[in-house]
């Protein structure tokens, strides 16, 4: 049997990463269940080749399916462009030609494939501008929001998780696990609305949404402060919902280490309790979680759809939702490929990393 199970996947779907609905259960063990262990012979080269090929096939499938899925959205794009205005057949024809909709399907497909490969993604229906430019404009906003949120969530989750696991069963542990689970159970969009209601509307401390205020002077510092000001609530929401996943994983990873002989040895050497934790237990517990963090990188690009929508954050996620309702087919196509590619590549990276981290994988079976 030569199956190629990606060994780094957590048991349940997308693990702790990503906001919104696609949260897996927290505390899912990071390693796959016994028996799924990949048995590969032939060393790193073969391992690498196999996974790169797998990722390439997945990408190709995404590329193809993206074209056809969104073509299934019923309706004539022209109706949307001419919403609530009477149009003559001549006007219709002129607009079809302009959007390239008069081309035969195979030609459209060919243009799409060659275009995507050369980064020429075509024009958006709603903006009438190159999609590539749109993505380049909005990517930084997304990276800023989910990047900051992700880093905070990982740090906070690991920090609390390590301590909670170390003092398993203590009041701190129980309190933190309960808090984490509670926040984890809140729907992102709802938490966002409540946060807006309390901090922006009642207390007036932060802007309701968006990324910047138009009246801000254009100099760097004013802009930075303004964006930071807008960033607080979305990042707070994103982090609150996501960090529990990392907390639970770190906690169970520390629990696994608790019985280790090396800890007893370290204590015997007279090290203080928190030094044992910091110098010995945590580094060892971190190892299995590293691939998980890598996996989460994929969702930095696509993981904040709901948060962006609640806060009208001008990123890729809100562009995706907006395009669904338009519907802006070329944008949907491009974003679907981009979003999927980012997870596929993140998984690939995690797999490669796993080879170096988990020696068991190198065993030949």
């Amino acid at each position, binding site marked *: 049997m030569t199956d190629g199970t990606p060994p780094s996947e957590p048991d349940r779907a997308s693990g702790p990463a990503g906001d919104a609905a696609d949260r897996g259960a927290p505390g899912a*063990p990071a390693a796959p269940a016994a028996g799924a262990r990949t048995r590969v012979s032939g060393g790193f080269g073969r391992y690498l080749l196999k996974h790169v090929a797998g990722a390439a096939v997945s990408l190709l499938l995404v590329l193809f399916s993206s074209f056809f899925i969104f073509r299934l959205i019923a309706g004539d794009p022209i109706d949307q462009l001419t919403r609530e205005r009477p149009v003559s057949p001549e006007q219709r024809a002129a607009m079809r030609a302009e959007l390239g909709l008069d081309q035969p399907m195979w030609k459209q497909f060919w243009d799409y494939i060659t275009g995507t490969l050369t980064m020429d993604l075509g024009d958006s229906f709603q903006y009438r501008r190159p999609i590539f430019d749109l993505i380049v404009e909005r990517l930084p906003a997304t990276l800023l929001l989910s990047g900051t949120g992700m880093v905070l969530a990982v740090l906070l989750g690991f920090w609390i998780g390590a301590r909670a696991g170390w003092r*398993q069963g203590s009041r701190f542990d129980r309190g933190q696990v309960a808090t984490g689970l509670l926040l984890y159970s809140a729907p992102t969009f709802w938490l966002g609305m409540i946060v807006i209601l309390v901090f922006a509307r009642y207390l007036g401390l932060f802007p309701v949404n968006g990324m910047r205020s138009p009246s801000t002077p254009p100099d760097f510092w004013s802009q930075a402060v303004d964006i930071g000001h807008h960033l607080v609530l979305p990042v707070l929401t994103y982090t609150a919902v996501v960090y529990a996943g990392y907390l639970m994983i770190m906690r169970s990873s520390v629990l696994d280490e608790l019985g280790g002989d090396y800890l007893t040895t370290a204590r015997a050497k007279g090290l203080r309790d928190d030094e044992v934790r910091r110098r010995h237990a945590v580094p060892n517990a971190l190892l299995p979680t590293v691939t998980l963090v890598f996996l989460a990188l994929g969702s930095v690009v696509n993981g904040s759809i709901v948060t962006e929508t609640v806060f009208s954050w001008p990123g890729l996620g809100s562009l995706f939702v907006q395009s669904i309702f338009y519907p802006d087919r070329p944008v949907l196509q491009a974003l679907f490929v981009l979003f999927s590619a980012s997870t596929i590549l993140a998984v690939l990276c995690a797999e490669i990393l796993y080879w170096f981290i988990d020696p068991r994988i190198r065993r030949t079976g």
Partner: protein
Amino acid sequence: MTAVPTSPRALRRARTRQSLARSWAAYRSQRAGMVGLVLLSAIVVLAVAAPLLVDQSQLSVTQATGGRMEPPSAEFPLGTDEVGRSILALTLWGSRLSLIIGLTATLAAILVGTAVGVTAGHVGGWYGWVALRVSDWFMVLPSLVVAIALLAVLGRSMGTTILVIALVSWSGTTRLVRAQTLTVQARPYLERARALGAGHWHQMTRHVLPNVLPLVLASATLLVPSAILMESSLAWLGLGDPNVVSWGSILNRASDNGAVSAHAWWYLLPPGLAILLVVLAFMMCGRALEAVFNPRLRGEGA
């Protein structure tokens, strides 16, 4: 056990009973799990009894008696929506749909996932390879993105929502089940069964499945909250059926009608808290179950 069982069937039944009792004892020792179970039972009872507690006519728009977004009062303990209906009644009735969608989607995902997983593990060969590749592919796709895209394509209804949620969540179960199947298959008694001429069907249903099911149950309990969260997110984004009352669709109407601008906290809090509680309850149960069936985790429950 004092009585000596007489037939193999009785023996088996007794053994099952025994192991169930053991599992229950293990489960009962987990406080969080028990709290979750009580919470969950309460919610299910409320959902089932909703028609008895609140008459369906309270959902009618033409018979609504309240004013527009009235704050809580004696008549409307949780205030009213933009049409003047009681938020309490809406939230109670909403529980039915949210639970049905969550449970049905999970059930579908689990059924497909288990079937594919067991067969992929058991049969192997090119079928196993293809099944694994397909489930891998679904696993790496970002699920919310796929769900949004599919709903836009398939149209909005309860059925499509269930279908889409099941479609983005079956692959995890497949992987879990397949792994467990491989483990079980390597055990000596299955080799013995094979040697005795047991067919594929017999092996799968009598030996593999019973061993896989507990884990599937635990993972299903943890899938339900994701499904409920996903349903509410999709409905809030405006991708649900606006003609039904679910927690997500109530919140969608709330934000469309400017509940945030109007500071109508009573419109936002109840459905959201309801989602939170259900998800929390399922999660607590699921974690406890997992600890019961996965000894590695046992004893860590708080």
